[in-house]
C-alpha cells in the first residue's frame, strides 16, 4: 500500500502501486487510490470555488457591488433625522440589498448553470445534490450578510445609531436564506438566461415596494398589514422591530389590537410573532415551489 500526504493535509492510500497520473488501473481485485474527503470538506471547497466564480462573473459582481451603493445613496438622499428613521432606512435597505444581490443573483446563476448543463454534469461528481445546492447557496448568503454589514457600517458613519442587535442579523440571515430559496424557485420558471430578468421581476418589484411600504408610518395600517403578507415585507418589518425601533413606527391594525387585548398579549409581541411566522411561511413556500419546479437540465 502506498500512502501519500498532500500539501493540504489530506491523506491518500493506494493499493495499486500506480503512480498518480499513470494509467487508470482499477478493476477486478484492485482499488483506485483514494483520499478521505468529508461531505463538509467537499462543500467548503465548492463554496470557495463558487465565491471565486462570483468574482469572475461580471453581472453577478455588478449586482453585488451596486446594491450596497444604492442603499447608501438612498440614505444620502433622504438624510434620516432620527434614530427611528435610520432604523427604518437600514431595515428596508438591507432587504433591498438582499433581494437584488441574493434573490436576483441566485436565480441568474441557477439558470445559467442549468443552461450550460453544469448542474447536470456536477451531479455525476461526488458532490451529492444537497451538497451542491448548499455550496451554490452559501456564497450568496455570506455575501448578503457581508453587504448588510457594509451598509450598517456606512450608515453609522453617516450618523445612524450602531446596529449591533443580534436579532437584526438573524433576520438578515433568514432573509438571505429566503432569497436563495426564492431564487431556486424562480429558476424553475425561467427557461433561459435571457428570460431570467422577466422571471424575477414580480417578486423583485413586489418585494422592494412592500419592504419599504410596510415601514411607512404615513400609510394606512390596514394596507400596511396586508402588505406584510407579501414576500420580503415581514423581513423588513421584523428587522426594524429587532433593531429596537419605537412601536409607533409599525402597523397596528384594529383587529390585531383587539386580539391582543383579548388574549392579554402586547400588540408588538403579536405582530413580531406574525412577522416570524410570515418569514418562515415564505421560506417554506419558496422551498416547496423550488422542489416542484426544480430541474437539473434545460427543458428538452
Amino acid at each position, binding site marked *: 500500500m502506498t500512502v501519500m500526504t498532500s500539501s493540504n493535509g489530506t491523506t491518500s492510500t493506494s493499493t495499486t502501486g500506480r503512480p498518480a497520473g499513470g494509467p487508470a488501473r482499477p478493476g477486478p481485485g484492485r482499488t483506485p*487510490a483514494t483520499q478521505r474527503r468529508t461531505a463538509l470538506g467537499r462543500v467548503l471547497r465548492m463554496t470557495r470555488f463558487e465565491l471565486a466564480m462570483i468574482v469572475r462573473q461580471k453581472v453577478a459582481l455588478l449586482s453585488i457591488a451596486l446594491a450596497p451603493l444604492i442603499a447608501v445613496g438612498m440614505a444620502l438622499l433622504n438624510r434620516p433625522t432620527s434614530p427611528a428613521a435610520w432604523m427604518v432606512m437600514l431595515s428596508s435597505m438591507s432587504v433591498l440589498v438582499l433581494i437584488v444581490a441574493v434573490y436576483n443573483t441566485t436565480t441568474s446563476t441557477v439558470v445559467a448553470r442549468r443552461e*450550460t448543463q453544469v448542474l447536470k454534469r456536477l451531479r*455525476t461528481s461526488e458532490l451529492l445534490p444537497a451538497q451542491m445546492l448548499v455550496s451554490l447557496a452559501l456564497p450568496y448568503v455570506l455575501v448578503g450578510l457581508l453587504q448588510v454589514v457594509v451598509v450598517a457600517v456606512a450608515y453609522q458613519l453617516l450618523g445612524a445609531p450602531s446596529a449591533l442587535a443580534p436579532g437584526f442579523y438573524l433576520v438578515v440571515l433568514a432573509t438571505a436564506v429566503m432569497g436563495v430559496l426564492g431564487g431556486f424557485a424562480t429558476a424553475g420558471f425561467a427557461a433561459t438566461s435571457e428570460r431570467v430578468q422577466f422571471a424575477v421581476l414580480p417578486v423583485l418589484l413586489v418585494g422592494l415596494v412592500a419592504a419599504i411600504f410596510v415601514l411607512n408610518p404615513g400609510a394606512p395600517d390596514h394596507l400596511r398589514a396586508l402588505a406584510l403578507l407579501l414576500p420580503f415585507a415581514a423581513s423588513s418589518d421584523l428587522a426594524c422591530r429587532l433593531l429596537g425601533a419605537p412601536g409607533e413606527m409599525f402597523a397596528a391594525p384594529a383587529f390585531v389590537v383587539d386580539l391582543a387585548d383579548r388574549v392579554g398579549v402586547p400588540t408588538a409581541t403579536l405582530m413580531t410573532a406574525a412577522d416570524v411566522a410570515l418569514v418562515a411561511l415564505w421560506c417554506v413556500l419558496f422551498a416547496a415551489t423550488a422542489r416542484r419546479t426544480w430541474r437539473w437540465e434545460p427543458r428538452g
Partner: protein
Amino acid sequence: MTSSSATSDPIIDVRDLHFSYGGHRAVRGVSLSIEPAQVYALLGTNGAGKTTTLELIQGFRRPDSGSIRVLGVEPTADLRRIRQRTGAMLQEAGLFPELTVQATMQLWSDLSSRVDDVDAVIERVGLDHKRATRVQALSGGERRRLDLATTIWGGPDLIILDEPTTGLDPASRQTLWALVRELRDGGTTVLLTTHQLEEAENLADRVAIMHQGRVAVAGTLDEVLATEPARVTFDVPPAVGAAWLTSQVRPEGVEVHQHPVRRPHGDRTEVHVTGPQPVRDLRWVLDAAARAGVELERLRANPASLEEVFHRVRLTDLTDPSDHPSDPSSDDPSEVRA
C-alpha cells in the same frame, strides 16, 4: 473502498426495469448484466430509452419498478458510494465555460476522493497544449476530451459514456476508442451508448440494442449478428434463374430470393440465399450448382452486419406488453430475446 468485481459479481445488474415520464413509458422491462472489465454498448434508435436507462443506473432517477445494482449497491440508496467509484460522461460536456482546462481538472480533483495527477490526466487526453485555455474557447472535440479527462479521473471502476464520440473528428474518435480499450484492458468496466454502429463493432465486448424502451437483442457481437441470417449471394443469367436451386430440398431455415439486376456486362438474376448457418448454406448452394452445372457469378457469403440487425430491430414493433426480451447473460431463463 471495496471492489465488487473481486467476487466476480456483475458490475451492473439491472432486472425488469420500468420507468415512465408521465404517461410515456420510456423504459419497459429492461434487464442487463455487465461483467467486470467489459465494454458494453447500448445501441438504439432515438427515444429508445438508452439515456433514461443510463440515468436510472446512475441514480439520477428512481425506477417505477425493477431492481438496479451498480457495484453491488442500489444507486438511489447509496449515491455517495456509486459516485466514488464511477466516472460519467454525459451527452453534453457541462463544464464551467469560464474555467481553464487546468482549473477544471483542479476543481474535479477537489471534489473527488480518487487521487490522480492533474497534469498527467490532461496530457493523457491530449490537451496539454491547452492547459491555460478557457473551456469556452475550446473546440467541440477538445471539450469532449476534457469531459473525458474528468470522467477517467482517478481511474474509476465503472465508466459510463453517453454518446462519447458525438461531434468528434475521426482522429479524436480513434484516440478515444484507444483510450477506452486501454481502460478496459486495465480492468475498468465501460458502459456506453452510441448511435454509431461502427463504434460498437470496434469497442464492445457485448452489445444490446434498445427499441421502444426494451432491449430487443443483446449478447456478444457474434451472438447479436447470429440473430440475423447470414447471406450467400450470386448472379446467374436470367435464363437460368433459381429454379435449379429451389427445386432442391432446402436445409432448415434457408430462404431463397431472386430479382433481376443490371450489370455492366448485361442483365442478370441476383439470387440471395439466407439462413442461420452460412457455411452449411454455402455448401448446399455449391453442391446444387455443381449438380445442375450452373456457373455462379459474383459469389459472396457474408454474415449479417450490425446495421442489418439494427435495421430489423428498428422495424420491429415491441409495444406488446407480454414481450419482455432481455440480455441473455442475465440468469433468468424465462427471459427471451427478440
